[in-house]
């Protein structure tokens, strides 16, 4: 089933990062195996006459073209709204897209987003015509504020970036889903295993964004395929309707006409 991001219809609910792969070739094969049509990337300072960045850029363009997909630039490394807005504008000029994965980091230890700067940057970027995909914590009120500002897509973390700890606070995430039924919710960061992604989809999340869990696997291409399957399975389960959890045991085999030899004298 399809996912809609700011009016663009996608055949996959997985958004994939392009960093940390053992090689550009493995990155390309992993992206193809993932089925994803949205690839994240970033900007860094250029050294005079350094051409490696140009090669990577060419490679990413080719991959995205091959999957008929979209680039999603991020503002990684920014710590203030001003930095993030400037980087977003630079990204827009280079990548020719209004989409921006907005990251404004408030703490170096756990790379937790700075909620105040994030809201400030979101407001400025939306005014400047951007389609903002904010990376945020699993704080319901922050997500609500981002949605109220005009973010159709909200991306709360599962856990800190690169930890692979999975869904730290399932209750918070379920509550965000419940309270923001019309927002497109993408679980971003901290996912370690395909089962984490599947769980998010079973909760009713619209998609998952990840990088390290695939890029740092022993076999990134195989892991990309596993995430592809897990996300589809989780979505199918959500649509099919998961049975309510029950406190007590219920026999699944009919008890009527149970064979007599189990009966007490």
């Amino acid at each position, binding site marked *: 089933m399809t996912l809609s991001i700011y009016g663009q219809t996608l055949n996959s609910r997985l958004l994939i990062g*392009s960093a940390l792969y053992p090689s550009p070739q493995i990155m390309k094969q992993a992206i193809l195996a993932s089925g994803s049509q949205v690839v994240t990337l*970033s900007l860094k300072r*250029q050294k*005079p006459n350094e051409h490696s960045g140009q090669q990577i850029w060419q490679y990413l363009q080719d991959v995205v073209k091959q999957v008929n997909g979209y680039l999603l630039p991020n503002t990684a490394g920014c710590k203030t709204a001003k930095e993030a807005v400037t980087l977003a504008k*630079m990204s827009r000029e280079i990548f020719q897209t209004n989409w921006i994965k907005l990251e404004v980091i408030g703490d170096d230890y756990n790379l937790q987003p700075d909620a105040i700067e994030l809201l400030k940057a979101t407001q400025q970027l939306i005014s400047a015509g951007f389609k903002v995909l904010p990376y945020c914590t699993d704080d319901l009120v922050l997500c609500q504020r981002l949605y109220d500002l005009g973010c159709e897509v909200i991306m709360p973390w599962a856990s800190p970036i690169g930890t692979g700890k999975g869904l730290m606070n399932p209750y918070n995430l379920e509550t965000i889903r419940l309270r923001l039924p019309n927002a497109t919710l993408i679980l971003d960061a901290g996912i370690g295993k395909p089962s984490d992604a599947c769980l998010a989809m079973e909760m009713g999340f619209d998609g998952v964004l990840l990088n390290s869990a695939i890029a740092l696997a022993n076999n990134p291409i195989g892991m990309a395929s596993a995430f592809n399957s897990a996300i589809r399975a989780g979505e199918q389960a959500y649509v099919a309707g998961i049975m309510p959890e029950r406190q007590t045991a219920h026999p699944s085999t009919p008890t009527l006409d149970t064979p007599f030899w189990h009966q007490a004298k």
Partner: protein
Amino acid sequence: MKFYINDQTYTLTSTSDTSVTTALTLHFNKPQQSTFAVALNGDFIGKADYGHTMVKNGDRLDILQPIQGG
């Protein structure tokens, strides 16, 4: 005058301001077709504005290029 590109110092014998276009020719030693974007003192400068945006003594330019990201 002196200014900085990606924290590298560039010195011009002239004391008058110079355009972003001229400053970029100092950074890129030979003509190239890199994909990049520019910020001056932390503010984005669009390509169309390179010719008439002036770099003053002590200014800081950032030149960024695409890289993989998560």
